[in-house]
């Protein structure tokens, strides 16, 4: 259960040129090990830059990043080792598939790590299982599969490296409701079974409410807030600023409060709202 800590991290594109653009400014935060941390922010707030710092794709122009206790840039030549420990799934990951078979594509990461033989096979098959890919698909060409299946293959390709940390950028983007639930459910199961640290980027507060334990909010290239769902959602302006909306059920509760009713507005899922309202009805009968 490993944590990631950023210490005064800044990143600028094209530094010291007239085109210099600050993408992150003085961010210091610790991502708690063993939890699902949601990362939210408006477009342009620095989310994807932040994500790419975590696995060493981008190097901070100042500041340090620690994976556990280790400064990931202490030995820059070995940065690819960090990428095996912090796995990253980009948006629409199915666009990166290239191999002849699903099996081979999932194998790409572990093979780069030097895995072979039985260990390699085990990694591939268990990753496929976690994302719900049936065995008969392993021998097919990834390009024969449906979009949803391709996405699973791409995610399996990262899980097969068995990283200690997993970063996912909108893993459910473009999927229908069932597909969304399945993918996010698989990720939750994976995280819980293996006690991984997961960072989830999403625009859906409904999904955040159901799947994340903590939230990090970025705004205008800096860290705005890190806290529990309750702490963050209570500050509705923060959410609004980020161009996001609180879960619909929370907004219903807020509307009720505005009408003068005494309701608890720290309700973020339908199950929760249902329980509270029925408890209320039962107790008043």
């Amino acid at each position, binding site marked *: 259960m490993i944590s990631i800590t950023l210490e005064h991290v800044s990143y600028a594109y094209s530094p010291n040129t007239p085109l210099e653009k600050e993408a992150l400014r003085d961010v210091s935060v610790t991502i708690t090990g063993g939890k699902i941390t949601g990362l939210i922010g408006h477009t342009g707030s620095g989310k994807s830059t932040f994500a790419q710092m975590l696995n060493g*794709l981008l190097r901070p122009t100042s500041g340090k990043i620690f994976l556990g206790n280790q400064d990931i840039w202490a030995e820059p030549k070995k940065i690819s080792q960090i*990428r*095996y420990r912090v*796995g*990253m799934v980009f948006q629409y990951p199915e*666009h*990166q598939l*290239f191999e002849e078979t699903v099996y081979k594509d999932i194998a790409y990461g572990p093979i780069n790590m030097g895995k072979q033989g039985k260990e390699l096979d085990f990694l591939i098959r268990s990753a496929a299982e976690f994302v719900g890919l049936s065995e008969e698909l392993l021998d097919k060409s990834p390009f024969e599969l449906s979009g949803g299946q391709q996405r699973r293959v791409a995610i399996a390709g990262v899980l097969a*490296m068995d990283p200690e940390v997993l970063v996912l950028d909108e893993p459910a983007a473009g999927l229908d409701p069932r597909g969304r639930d399945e993918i996010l459910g698989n990720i939750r199961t994976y995280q819980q079974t293996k006690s991984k640290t997961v960072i989830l980027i999403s625009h859906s507060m409904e999904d955040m409410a159901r799947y994340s334990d903590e939230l990090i909010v970025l705004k205008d290239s800096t860290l705005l807030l890190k806290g529990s769902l309750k702490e963050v959602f209570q500050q509705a302006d923060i959410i609004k600023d980020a161009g996001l909306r609180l879960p619909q059920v929370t907004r219903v509760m807020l509307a009720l409060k505005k009408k003068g009713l005494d309701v608890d507005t720290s309700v973020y899922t339908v199950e929760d709202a249902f329980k509270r309202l029925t408890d209320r009805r039962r107790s008043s009968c």
Partner: protein
Amino acid sequence: MLKDITLGQYFPGKSPLHTMDPRMKLLLTIFYIVILFFAKSVYAFAWMLLSTFVLILCSGLSFKLLIKGVKPIFFILLFTGVINLFFTKDTQDPLFSFWIFIVYPKGVYTAIFMIVRILCLVLGSSLLLTYTTTPRALTDAIERLLSPLNLLNIPVYDFAMMMSLALRFIPTLLEDTVKIMNAQKARGADFESGSLIKRAKALLPVLIPLLVTAFRRSNDLAVAMECRCYMGGKGRTRMKQLRLHASDLLAALLFLAFGAALFSCNYIPTGIRL
């Protein structure tokens, strides 16, 4: 890094070069390039330099920007200079010699002139064409200049459409490439170290997805174009008409005058023979 390529890029502006009819610019560029190869004397080359300088002024672009654009050909210039410097033979006495390298006066002049010519060629065509003309205007110009070929049943418009689509998608495909590279790097791909063969192999996980993406995009695009009633070039009208103005004809005259002057310069006697 990929976004910094200035050679061939368009810089917006309102200078006389920017507003000139793109067909005229295209024709004048060809004329300019051809004329440059006729320069044979010192005065002709001096005239060449002067005219290029005038072009720079007409474009309204800064020198800094132009120097940046010339950087990629720096080595070509150096190479050309060196070759001509050391390997041009002459009947006069050499200036100095070292091992197999003999430098004649003619060598010095030729080196300088070659460099000047290449520089003027590159700068001139960039200033006239790519820096001051949008890719769309260029393809329009090419299409309209070639339109007589329609009579021979050659689908000129379709070719122009292909060109402008390619231009439209260059930034998009570049973005795709970066995304794919990042995704594969996150899985341990290494594009920087190793032998040439190793690095070439490492590109396969980038090229294949890129090809697939490009095909997917073009498929979607074809359907979208059909839905917007694309039928090739027949019966097409245009929102923006290209019309020649007096200023364009004036420019043409000036260029002709420049060409004539260049020729005449060749006949002014100088002490320097090339």
